[in-house]
């Protein structure tokens, strides 16, 4: 349970600052700090077991079939990172209490900060790679929120957007890499993947997987050429820079390199990509840092450079180098976070971060100056400080590798060059800010910060010194267990001593220190050289690129989605022709050899009528009423075809739907133009004809190919069980209300939804009511012909009786709820047509949307009823009873379900038609009408 709380406490802590929003600032800060402090205590309680090499694993199953579990895994590496995240996080909370001004919303800041902390802990503690990815994305989002915390500043918004774009893009690459990884390893569990190193590296997709993985890591850890987002993210408040952009988030990429070190490292490709990227970043970052006038800008580039150093170490494919990498992660986090916080103090107390104006601050803030000097010295690699130790190890490792063959000596050389720059910019940081004359044009007089604002810096600087003097005692265990986790247990021999005798690494350190001092003294020439180079405004270039990308996407989008249904249809149908046509071409013969039924005169006549009326519909489609009449013939012929080919249920349904459809379209024509103007160019007509013919040919051929092939059907099961299992002899109906009852429930739900949608569409419609037909003839004055009215009225009870009969016999003979519902609806619609809405409304004032609801409810409850008997949803029941006069009758739960279908169909059909019909009357639906 422990490990879960480490993650859960900060997650709950996200809410604390919001709940304490009304309290004083200090209370808010203390309240916020409580959760991570508790989590830290829990983490420290696991120290013993983690250091002894134990891996604490906790797992909760979520969707085991998909391999999705909540897995938490605490080993040495996770412990190290959790410690950094929680401990530095606590210091940052304290620091931010004093850093944020009265105008800044403290609860919002703390809440974002805790969200970030949760996400970061999630990455390091997850034991499932998809889970890692989820938290990975969450860090990108919370970092976006934190960078844009001062959203009123344009640079903050732009910097946040850039950071999100770069790290988010990397996150997508990482997702692809993780999916590949999971597929290759056959599991998304971290523990499984780490054991499959050999298998993964021999897989043909390993290069792709590695590149995608590294893209994710490098974007996050600001490696060249993706480094440019980090300096722009410095628009964030300084606590954020100290926490996210030096100590934790930018190390997430490095963390992944370390985490997957056992599975992915050791290959030539890994070395080339990782170490060369790291080396380039190390050099570029160190060089550019020297020329930044902005205090935070200098620190940002220095961070980039140090991240490059760590990456280079992990790329060297040597166990000792990995140990050095882990060690430098610890050291960098301590000295860089303290430097950032000190820079924030200077900014806060003097009102500027520009090193051209900040001079001689020593006299105003000697304590802060001392702290910053120690931290900067650690960064430069001065002996007796922690930075010296890891840098020494780094130099030793660059000398050990022979990966570039005869040119291997280049790596230690370039490493020394980078170290020279590192010393030079550290020196500049100290000399420029605290000495070098007097401050120029500061808005306020600098002074020491509040006592507790300096405390976090003091703690970290103290650590720098202590680790520098007694490394083995302080971080020996931590480093051991973390490095063991990275190297999967194969920890090499190493010594954390301060003094290793006179050797080459020591010489390199000495050269770096001397060279750095020299470079700083001679900086004038270097600055002149650099200022002669054309400046690169990465933010503007990036935004221009983004704009172009957006414009290109817009263009493509507008080309595809130009608002023309014809365009979409043409694209869709072309795709269909290609996808369905190609397999047909590859087939040897269309016919499948099944004997055809001979054509008789009746069938031939029917087919001819069908073809002629379909053709007539197309030819006369401009005269809409005529087209409507023609298509009704098509519908009739289709229902006759169903009768002919042994499908009476279908024929009945088609017939009644046909009537309803034609009435609906007639009604619609009242509101639409009666003629279609000739508009298409001939070429377009030819194109459409061609496309339509192709689709027709393919569909017809497919149908022929299917019909002439012998087949077996799963229907034998339905036929065998309809009577014994469903209690009915009409198999079609039994399938609908029993075997596939759940489908039918879904279908009537769709019907109801469509009807409701139509009802809503017709509400408050600014309708145009034509006073004459398309030819300009006025409507007939006699609105409700007497003859029709009389017939309709007398037919109604007969029709209702027929529909009841059809309904009840449905289970055993052709009929059922669908058909009965349609017949009832048609009878009532006839009444509407003949007598008018007012007449019907006076006699039958029903809201059809309620009818639909009742129908759906009946069907739904019938299904539920089977739960009462401990059976699965929609299990059917039937039995036979003897009744006097009637004889034996059957009662089946399917009848109740069918009743639901019946009521829904009646309600939906009438809702559709009556709503449209009412449009011409005073009963037009408006918002006032009850919904």
């Amino acid at each position, binding site marked *: 349970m422990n490990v879960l709380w480490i993650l859960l406490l900060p997650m709950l802590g996200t809410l604390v600052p919001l709940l304490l929003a009304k309290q004083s600032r200090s209370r808010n800060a203390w309240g916020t700090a409580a959760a991570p402090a508790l989590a830290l205590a829990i983490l420290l309680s696991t120290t013993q077991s983690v250091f002894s090499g134990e891996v604490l694993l906790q797992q909760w199953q979520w969707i085991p079939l998909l391999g999705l579990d909540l897995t938490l895994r605490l080993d040495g590496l996770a412990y190290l990172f959790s410690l950094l995240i929680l401990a530095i996080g606590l210091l940052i909370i304290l620091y931010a209490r004093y850093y944020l001004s009265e105008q800044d919303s403290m609860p919002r800041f703390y809440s974002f900060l805790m969200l970030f902390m949760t996400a970061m802990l999630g990455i390091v503690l997850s034991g499932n790679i998809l889970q890692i990815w989820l938290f990975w994305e969450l860090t990108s989002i919370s970092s976006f929120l934190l960078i844009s915390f001062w959203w009123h500043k344009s640079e903050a918004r732009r910097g946040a957007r850039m950071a999100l774009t770069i790290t988010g893009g990397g996150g997508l690459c990482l997702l692809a890499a993780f999916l590949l990884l999971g597929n290759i390893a056959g599991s998304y569990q971290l523990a499984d993947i780490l054991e499959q190193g050999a298998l993964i590296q021999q897989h043909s997709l390993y290069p792709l997987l590695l590149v995608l993985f590294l893209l994710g890591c490098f974007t996050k850890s600001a490696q060249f050429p993706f480094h440019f987002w980090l300096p722009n993210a410095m628009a964030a408040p300084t606590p954020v820079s100290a926490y996210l952009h030096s100590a934790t988030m930018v190390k997430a990429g490095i963390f992944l390199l370390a985490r997957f070190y056992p599975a992915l490292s050791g290959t030539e490709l890994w070395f080339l990509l990782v170490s060369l990227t790291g080396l380039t970043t190390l050099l570029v970052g160190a060089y550019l840092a020297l020329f930044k006038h902005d205090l935070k800008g200098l620190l940002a580039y220095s961070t980039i450079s140090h991240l490059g150093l760590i990456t280079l170490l992990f790329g060297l494919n040597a166990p000792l180098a990995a140990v050095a990498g882990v060690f430098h992660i610890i050291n960098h986090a301590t000295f860089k976070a303290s430097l950032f916080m000190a820079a924030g103090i200077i900014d806060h107390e003097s009102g500027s971060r520009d090193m051209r104006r900040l001079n001689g601050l020593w006299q105003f803030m000697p304590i802060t100056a001392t702290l910053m000097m120690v931290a900067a010295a650690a960064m430069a690699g001065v002996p007796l400080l922690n930075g010296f130790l890891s840098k020494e190890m780094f130099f030793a490792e660059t000398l050990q590798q022979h990966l570039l063959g005869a040119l291997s000596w280049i790596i230690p050389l370039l490493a020394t060059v980078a170290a020279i720059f590192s010393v030079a910019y550290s020196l500049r940081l100290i000399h420029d800010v605290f000495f070098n004359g007097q401050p120029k044009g500061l808005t306020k007089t600098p002074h020491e910060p509040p006592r507790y604002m300096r405390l976090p810096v003091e703690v970290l600087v103290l650590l720098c010194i202590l680790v520098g003097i007694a490394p083995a005692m302080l971080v020996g265990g931590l480093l051991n267990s973390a490095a063991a986790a990275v190297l999967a247990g194969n920890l090499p021999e190493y010594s954390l001593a301060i003094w290793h005798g006179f050797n080459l690494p020591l010489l390199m350190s000495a050269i770096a220190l001397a060279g750095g001092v020299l470079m700083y003294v001679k900086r004038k020439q270097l600055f002149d050289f650099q200022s002669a180079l054309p400046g690169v405004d990465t933010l503007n270039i990036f935004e221009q690129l983004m704009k172009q990308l957006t414009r290109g996407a817009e263009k493509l989008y507008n080309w595809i989605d130009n608002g023309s*249904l*014809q365009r979409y249809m043409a694209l869709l149908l072309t795709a269909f022709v290609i996808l369905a046509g190609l397999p047909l071409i590859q087939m040897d013969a269309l016919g499948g050899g099944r004997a*055809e*039924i001979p054509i008789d005169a009746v069938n031939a006549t029917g087919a001819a009528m*069908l073809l002629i009326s*379909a053709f007539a*519909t*197309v030819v006369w*489609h401009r005269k809409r009423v005529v*087209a409507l009449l023609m*298509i009704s013939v098509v*519908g009739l012929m289709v229902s006759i075809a*169903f009768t002919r*080919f*042994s*499908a009476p*249920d*279908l024929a009945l349904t*088609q017939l009644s739907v046909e009537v309803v*459809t034609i009435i609906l*379209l007639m009604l*619609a024509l009242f*509101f*639409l133009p009666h003629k*279609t103007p000739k*508009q*298409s160019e001939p070429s377009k007509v030819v194109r*459409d*004809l061609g*496309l*339509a013919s192709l*689709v*027709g040919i393919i*569909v*017809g*051929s*497919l149908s*022929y190919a*299917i*019909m002439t092939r012998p087949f077996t059907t799963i*229907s034998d099961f*339905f036929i065998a069980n*309809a*009577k014994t299992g469903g209690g009915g*002899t009409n*198999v*079609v109906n039994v*399938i609908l209300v029993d075997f596939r009852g759940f489908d039918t429930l879904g*279908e009537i739900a769709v*019907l109801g939804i*469509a*009807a409701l949608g*139509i009802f809503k*569409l*017709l509400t408050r*419609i*600014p309708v145009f009511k034509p006073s004459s037909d398309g030819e300009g003839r006025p409507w007939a004055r006699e609105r409700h012909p007497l003859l029709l009215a009389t017939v309709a009225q007398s037919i109604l009870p007969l029709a209702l009786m027929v529909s009841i009969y059809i309904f009840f016999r449905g289970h055993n003979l*052709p009929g059922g709820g*669908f058909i009965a519902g349609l017949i009832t609806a048609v009878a009532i619609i006839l009444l509407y047509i003949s007598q008018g809405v007012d007449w019907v409304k006076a006699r039958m004032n029903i809201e059809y949307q309620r009818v639909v609801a009742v129908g759906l409810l009946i069907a739904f409850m019938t299904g539920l009823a089977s739960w009462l008997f401990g059976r699965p949803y929609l299990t059917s029941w039937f039995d036979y009873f003897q009744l006097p006069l009637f004889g034996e009758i059957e009662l089946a739960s399917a009848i109740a379900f069918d009743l639901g279908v019946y009521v829904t169909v009646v309600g939906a059909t009438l809702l559709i038609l009556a709503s*449209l019909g009412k449009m011409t009357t005073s009963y037009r639906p408006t918002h006032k009408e009850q919904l």
Partner: protein
Amino acid sequence: METLFALCIGFLTACGVFLMLRGRTFPVVVGLTMLSYAVNLFIFASGRLNLKGAVVLGTSDSYADPLPQALVLTAIVIGFAMTAFLVILAIRARADLGNDHVDGSMPAPRHAKRERTK
């Protein structure tokens, strides 16, 4: 018979598709109706044609395949709901936008339309 039936399905499909490619709402609705006839017949035919197949148990040994029939039965009803929705959408679109185009062209004054057809 199968040949003729397939011919009918293909022809109905072609007619439906052609109408659906027109630039106004009403022909599209008619086209969709026609296409749904074709699709229903297509699904129905996948159970093979059977002139004298039994549909009710106990009347004959040779049964018409009931499964495609059950599928098509609901397809007919849903098809009606869809056609209805589409046609009401067309009415609403005409009421709100003032025209019944689906070809993506902006509502243009009458004389401009005439120019476009040239």
